[in-house]
Structures are given as C-alpha cells and as structure tokens.
C-alpha cells in the first residue's frame, strides 16, 4: 500500500490537552480535608480572559468624541464619522465603534467598564514579546516564564498537580479553549490549566465521537494509545458531566469563533465546574492594511472583528443571565498592544502602544475609567498613545476585588504593588475571604514557614526517596541557592533557608524528586 494513501485519515488534534494525572503517593484527601467539606464557602467566581490577537486598534474601538478633530486629522482614511459613533449613556465625550452595538447595550445596562489607555512603561512593539509581557505581567525588560493567572492559581493551589484532582478541587483549575498552549496559564513549575483544542473537538468529546484512524497496524496501535490517553485524562469525565448538566443555552451568532468558545464557557460554568479561569481568543487584529474599506470606514476588516467580539460577548452575557449564573462571571479583553495614532496609506495602522481594555460582567463597577487619549495637533507617524493605567493594575485589582486575594499573596503573584482600580463588586472580599482549604488540597510536598519572611524561613519537604533536589529560584527562574541535592530515604525533612542580603521580592522554593516537582512561592519582605 502506498504511504500517501494514509495522509487523509491521519492526526486530528486531540480534544483535550493537559490534565495528565500525577499520582499521589498518599491519599489525596486527608481526614482534615474531609472534615472541612461543606463547612466553607468556596468561591464561585469565574474570570474569562478574551485575547484579541494581533494588536487591536483601540482608538477606533473607543472613540474620543471630545478632540474628534485631532482624531479625524490623524487618521482620516480610517476615522469613524462622528455621527456614526455609538453613544454611551452618561458620557458625551466617548463612544464606541458602530459595530459594537452589543457592548453599547452592556455599557448602558451597567455591565461594562472601559479602562482607557492601558499599557506599561517602555512598551514593546513585537507581537511575541508584547504578548508574553501581557501574559506574564512582567516589566518590559525582563522575561518571566510564568503567567499571571498561572501564578494566581499556583498561589491558590500550591500543591497542584500533586494529588489532583481531589474532592476539594475535582475540576481543572483553568481551561483554555481554541488553543494549545498559553503562557498566561503557566505556573512557576507546570501549566495550571488545560486546553480544549477547539469547539468542534469539544462537541466530539462530549458526544463520544472518536477521531478516525486507518485500519492499519499503526492505526490500531494509535487507537489503543489514544484510548489509554482518554482514561488518564483526568478531566474529560468532569467536563462531560458539566456539559451534560446544561441541556440548552441561549442564542449565539453562527460563524463567530469567539461566540463558539464563549458558548462552551457558559455551558461549563452553568454545568458546575469549579474552574476559575477561562481563556478564549480570537485573532486577525493585526490590521496593517485594509482596516476599513476605502469608501466607508464603518465597515471592513476591523469593523467585522469588533462586531464579532461585541456580538459574542453580548450573547455570552445574555446566556449567562438566562442560565442564572451571571453573578459569577467577570470578563476582560486584552490585546498585546494598541495601534499607531496616525494611520498609514494602506488604510491601516501599525503597531502601537496603549489601548482600552473592556472589563465586563453583572458585578463590574461600570463606567469609564480614565480619560480619552489626547491626540496632539502636530501628530507624527511615531506618536503613540501614552498609558494612563498599567495593565497590571487591572490584573491586580481583579485578583483582589473579585478573587479576594490578600495583600501578601498579591505581591507574590504580581511581584510588585500596583494601583487599585475599583472594577469588581464582590461582597465576599473584605472579610477573610477564601482560605486554607485549597492551600492544603492535593499533596503537599514542600512548604515554608514563615511566609512572608524577613530574613530566613524553614522549608519542609517530603520525598518518596531517591535523589532529591531542593533549591531556591527567583521570579526569573534563576537558581539562587541549592539547599540540598542528594539521596534520601522516603520521609519528611526540614531545612533552613537564609535569605540575608537578597533583595526583597518573590522567590520560589522548588523540589525535584525524580520527575516529581513542586514549587512553593515565598515572599521576602523588609521588616
């Protein structure tokens, strides 16, 4: 048989990526855990991140009506006519792109906050680097290899993945749809989330449809291995169960990839998954040319993209309301950069800097945050929108106001203090909030006390025996000090770490025992 005859029926991406089990070496559920079950309130709050890939032209999405003249002069060939800008209740100065009728409605219903001119110091104009910056929440001149939500989840579930899933957290910590991998969900040691590769695969999964493989020996073996993959995929069962619990949903526009992803998110949220973070994405925003049509700037590529985003988010919000779960969900859009103030002659825009961010939800603190960007009269092609708000302030604010993350933890996750922007309304944050139930979920292999610490801290670790390495790494992944690197018999041991002389900030103590690893964030503070 000819080799090429098989190409048609070959690999399709598996429905689920990630979520491989890491077998616990002792019962994942301690009696202590079981005693706590039912006694505490766990968060039911969910954050949905919507990534707009390519660098969204924020200046045509949220349009400065005051200063319209300068706006029009700077980008005449793509400027939205003033009478087409969608009005926002209570504001005469700012409006939305005509495609975003859905977002306009949400704003007027008090479910949308628009944060103006979000960026960061020394912005980067490369897609890859800028995306990494937004996802890792690093300064622009350092490379951090973890994502901000990954670090949040690692802080909430420090033992993950050892001993997961367990009865405290039986579901994925984070789910990403329509992608394979993302820095944003990467924790200091492992990815904290799992992926549903695309909506089609999701429906195949829950309908138990199997990828076709040929009737050849390799096809047979591949089927066998995939079957075992299915069995070891810890989360396919809970995802199927959650999906099955939602027999019907509201209407979503067809032919809208973002809507398709958000539809799945709504279903899983309503279906009862305890998953806290969802990440969806849509692309095509890199509008260097043909951003609008030549004759009518209200239509064209960017208009279609914004319309897609607006329709998707609106139907998502309507569906959440219909399903009775809109109280639980907060969403935000982000893009790796905005675009140049001055348009180019290809009826497009080049890479820029700051741009608006949408934060939406029933419990958002609605309104406009910040003022319109001021466009100077003598605009040059090099001018970019300066930032008013550091994007990390938005992350920080959401973490503390929506997920009730405490101050010390916030520092560990975000590395620095950032401005608090009132964005979310969650009455639970302000009391003690969520606590150690989840800190102890799973199998704890390494922990330090005290944390935060001023100079030294004691590190206690558990090894199953054999070679064990414990070292301290900084937030950039550099090994600072090796505390132990030798053979152990199975057991629990304690070491001292003296951080005298080290700058204050976030460190991680990392355990490596064979292929097992666990990382515990620590915060060194000034006394």
């Amino acid at each position, binding site marked *: 048989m000819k080799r090429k005859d098989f190409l048609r029926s070959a690999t399709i*991406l598996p429905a689920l990526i990630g979520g491989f089990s*890491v077998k616990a070496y002792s019962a994942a559920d301690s009696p202590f855990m079981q005693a706590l079950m039912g006694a505490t309130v766990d968060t039911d709050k969910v954050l949905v991140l919507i990534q707009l890939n390519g660098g969204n032209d924020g200046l045509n999405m949220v349009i400065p009506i005051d200063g319209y003249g300068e706006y029009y002069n700077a980008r005449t060939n793509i400027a939205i006519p003033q009478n087409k800008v969608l009005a926002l209740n209570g504001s005469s100065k700012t409006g939305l792109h005509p495609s975003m009728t859905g977002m306009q409605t949400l704003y007027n219903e008090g479910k949308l906050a628009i944060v103006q001119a979000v960026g960061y110091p020394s912005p980067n104009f490369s897609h890859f680097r800028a995306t990494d910056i937004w996802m890792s929440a690093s300064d622009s001149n350092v490379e951090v290899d973890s994502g901000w939500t990954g670090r949040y989840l690692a802080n909430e579930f420090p033992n993950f993945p050892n001993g997961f899933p367990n009865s405290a957290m039986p579901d994925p910590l984070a789910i990403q749809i329509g992608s394979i991998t993302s820095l944003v969900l990467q924790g200091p040691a492992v990815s904290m989330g799992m992926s549903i590769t695309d909506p089609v695969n999701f429906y195949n999964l829950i309908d138990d449809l199997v990828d076709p493989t040929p009737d050849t020996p390799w096809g047979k073996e*591949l089927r066998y*291995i995939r079957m075992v993959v299915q069995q070891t995929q810890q989360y396919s069962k809970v995802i199927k169960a959650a999906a099955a619990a939602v027999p019907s949903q509201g209407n979503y526009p067809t032919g809208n990839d973002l809507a398709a992803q958000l539809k799945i998110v709504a279903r899983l949220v309503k279906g009862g998954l305890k998953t806290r973070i969802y990440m969806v994405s849509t692309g095509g925003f890199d509008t260097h040319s043909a951003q609008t049509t030549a004759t009518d700037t209200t239509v064209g590529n960017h208009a279609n993209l914004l319309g897609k985003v607006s329709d998707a988010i609106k139907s998502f919000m309507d569906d959440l309301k219909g399903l009775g779960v809109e109280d639980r969900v907060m969403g935000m859009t982000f893009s790796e950069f905005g675009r140049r103030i001055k348009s180019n002659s290809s009826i497009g825009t080049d890479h820029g800097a700051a741009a608006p961010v949408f934060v939406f939800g029933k419990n958002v603190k609605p309104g406009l945050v910040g003022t319109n960007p001021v466009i100077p009269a003598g605009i040059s092609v090099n001018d970019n929108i300066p930032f008013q708000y550091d994007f990390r302030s938005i992350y920080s604010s959401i973490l503390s106001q929506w997920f009730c993350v405490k101050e010390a933890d916030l520092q560990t996750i975000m590395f620095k203090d950032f401005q608090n922007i009132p964005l979310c309304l969650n009455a639970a944050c302000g009391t003690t909030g969520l606590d150690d139930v989840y800190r102890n979920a799973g199998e704890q292999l390494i922990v330090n006390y005290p944390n935060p610490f001023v100079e030294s801290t004691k590190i206690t670790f558990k090894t199953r025996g054999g*070679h064990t390495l414990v070292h301290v790494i900084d937030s950039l992944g550099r090994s600072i000090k090796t505390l132990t690197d030798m053979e152990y018999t199975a057991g629990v041991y304690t070491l001292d770490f003296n951080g005298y002389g080290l700058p204050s900030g976030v460190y991680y103590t990392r355990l490596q025992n064979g292929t097992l690893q666990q990382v515990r964030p620590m915060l060194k503070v000034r006394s």
Partner: protein
Amino acid sequence: MDRRAFLTAKRKAVQRQPDTVRHIARTMSGLAPYSGPWDTEAIIHLLKRTMFGASLADISYFKTFTMSQAVDVLLNPTAPLPSPPVKDYDTTGAEKPDTTIAPGTTWVNEYIDDGLIQGRRIESLKKWGIGVMLNQDRSIKEKMTLFWHNHFATETSVVAEPQALYKYHTLLRNNALGNFKSLTRAITVDVAMLKYLNGFLNTNTAPDENYGRELQELFTVGKANNPNYTEDDVKAAARVLTGWRIDLPTTATTFDSSKHDTGSKQFSSFYNNTVIAGRSGPTAGDDELDDMLTMIFSKKAEVSQFIVKKIYRWFCYYTIDATAQANVIDPLAQIFQDNNWEIKPVLAALLKSEHFFDALNRGCLIKSPLDIAVTLCREFNVTFPDPEAEYQTAYYMWDFLRNETMICNQEFGDPPSVSGWPSYYQVPQFYELWINSDTLPKRNMFTDTLIGNGYTRSGKTIKIDPVAFASQLSNPGDPNVLIDDSLAILYRVPVTDASRNTIKTNILLSGQTSDYYWTNAWNAYLANPTDSMAYQTVYTRLRDLYRYFMNLAEYQLA
C-alpha cells in the same frame, strides 16, 4: 525455580476492548529486496527500528549509503567494546570496602564478597548499561544485545554477582551478531546463567531441572510445537547438565565430574529417540552438552521458527498472519538453517526486504520504556556530563533514566522473569502492555521533565535544548518547514496539513496569522544569539512545540 507470576497487581494491563471488529490491513509482501524510495522516511524507519532513535546526524550519515549498504553498515559494527563500569559509589558501611579500587576506575577485575559493595556495583552496572545505549555506535549491536538480554534473560536481583553480570552482558554484546548456536552453548555455561537458573547446583544425586527446561522451552525450540519436547526430555536434559560449577572470585566456570550423572540420557521421539551417551571425566560436561545441542538444533524447523518469530516481533510487528508466515517467517527460518544458525543473514534478509519497509509495517511498534528514554536523549542531542571527566555526575544522570524506565516496567538488567519482558511474548497485546493508565502518565511526565526544567543533580542539568535542535534543521526560520522537519524525525505516522497549520498558528505564531512573525523572531535570535530576550522568544515557543509533539499519542510509536 518456579517462574514468578509476571502479572503482579501493579503491572496489570488495562482492560481493553479487542480490536476484533475492524479488519486490520496486512500486507502480502515478502522477502524480495525493497525497491521503493530510499528517502528520508525510509532511512528513519530503518534507524528507529535498529537503533535507539535516529538523530539528524545519524540520518545524514546513512543518507550516503544505498539501502543495502546501510543495512550492511548496521550489521557490521566496528566499534570496540565500551569501557567497563566504574566505581561511582562510596564504601561507607561496608565491612570489606574495595579500597584497592580508586573511585572512577573499573571494579570488574577485582572480586569482593561484601554484600553492600556488590549491591552498589550492580547499581553501577545498571547505570552503565544505560550509558552504553545512550552512546551507542551506528549499528544494530545495542538493540541486538538488548534482544539477547530479553531472550537469554537473567535478573541481577537473583544472580547478585556483579562480575558475573558484567561478563554475561559482555558475552551477549560480543555475540550479538554472531552464531546463535554458539551463543546458546556459551550462555549455558555462563557464570551468571548458571547462578540464575541453578545450573551451579545441578548435581547427579538429585538434578535440578530449571535450566534444562528453559533451554528448550524459552531458549531454543519453544513450547508452541506439536508434538514437542516432553517432561522426560526436561529431566534428561537436567542430567546432561549436572556437574557444572562456578567460581565466583575468578568469575569462572568449572566442571566437577564427581557431580556429573554419568548414565546415558534417553530423549523422546520428538528428538528421534536420541540417546546421549553418558561420559565421565573432566570433559564429560562439554561432550554431553555438545551432543545435546546437536540434538536440539537438529530440530531445525522448530528452532528456526521460534527464533525468527522473536526477531520478527522485535523489529517488525507482533501480528504474524498466514501470509507473513508463508512469505516472511518460513523463508527467514530457512535462511537461518541454511546459514548454520548465523544471525546476520537472517537480519540482512529481513531488514532489506520489501516487507520490512512496507508502509503497513511502519509506525506500528510501541516504544519500550528504554526506547522512549534513550531515543529522546539521542534524537534531541541531550548533553550528558562527560563520563571521563565527571563520571560521578554522568552516573547520576544515567541513574535517573534507569529509574524512569524502571517505573515504566522495563528495568535494564532485571526483566520480570526468565521469560523476559511480557511485551515481547504476551498474547494478544504484546507491546501494548507498555502503555497503561499507570505508565502512560509516567512516560509523559518524563518527556515533560526533559523538555521543561530538566533533571538537575550536582549542579548539572540534563534537558532538551529545543533551540539547538531546531537550529540544525534545514530551514528553521520557515515555521512550516520547521514543523515538517521536526515531525519527520519525531513521528512515524502522518499528520494532516490542517493539524500542522493549527499547531503552527497556536504555538509558533502565538495566534498571529502571518508566518513572518516567527521568521522575524528566529532571525532576530540568529542575529543576536546572546540577547536573552531574542533567545527567550524563540525558546519558549520551540519548547512548547516539542512538548506538545511528545504529549500526543503519535510520539509513542516507532
């Protein structure tokens, strides 16, 4: 010795629905020389079966030969024996420490009967075994040595004599591509084998049947024949083999004629009612053993079929249907007989055949744990500490691999029983047994670790360098070519264009729609390789790409 139960609770395979409803296509092809394209794919197929993976350098090397020449090169190794294992252990706690042996020098020439030291030497041997595979020459020798280790199985936990074990593995290595009958002869009186199957205790007053049975059942004629050898044949064989003894301090085999059964040994009609004349005197053991092997090997059909099938299952696939039997197994068995039990002609005929290169026989082997571990390190050029300059750390790293393969149910030196690893004989699943809900996550954790943080010990880390790997490909700046070249090396089964595109967009392009974003990032790295940001940008994406490739089921196939 009773064969231990090899399916312990821990090793239980997952219940699976049999693939009976689907008719799996088989081929009619036979031993006619392969005349299809001798392209990169064909080369990689050959190398992945005969070696532990195919690195880019290996592929380039073999491209310079024709198919037939390439097989000949693989079958005619010229490399010398690897350096022996060294003392990587300390002697703390030993009653009789081997202080005459300097650390970092070999222990194989000096016997010590301290249990602690012996234990540590055996561990040294196992780590060393991994190192030998990692540093293999460009030949089939290491895969064949492992084949013989699986066939003439011994277990270090039973033999427990490091010198003898080293000698046993060296015997296999030296004869890997030699004469099967001679090897059988040699293994029968090998010190480790005599210890393992109680041959060294076999005495005329009450013979021990262990080796006599396994010699026939597992090593030569096999148990599938009808008619077959009988229980009386086992007893007679045991009597032939009485009197052999071992001297551990000199790792030597001796013969004690006073312990030898000097009576004549009558064999069954399966063996044409052969009578082996009883001998006495110092050469009795040798003479009777020679006679017995002549007798056993006169069962040409049975012996040749049994061994040829094992070779077929090791290199080709485990299903032998009537067509393969007629077109491949029978002719190979004939070649084996006609060449007086020389292994090479059989291997040559198989590896040069259209059957071996048949599309239906590609990509269908599930990698053994040793294959997964060693192949990953070889294909990705993982750098290990220099065993000369940093032997201690090198042995630590080999030990890590040894442990990882062990927890996936293949410990070098210790197959679960004298039958070898079940993946090579257990009907109906065969090598599907390597993969179950316990071992598959472990295999994934291993590949994730090597592409992730790596494994660190004594200040050294072994890990995959995805940037270095991509750098050697034909055109890493083009994301499509990068993926194609990578999959050509890493996978043995096809991937659709749609999947490649999704992977490219999602991972290499971070969701962007234009290829040139990757190209620019790659070129930025090339222009300034020491710029950490330029490096990180390509590093994280390549790392995610290769981690993803290794996480898919496809990676488990060879």
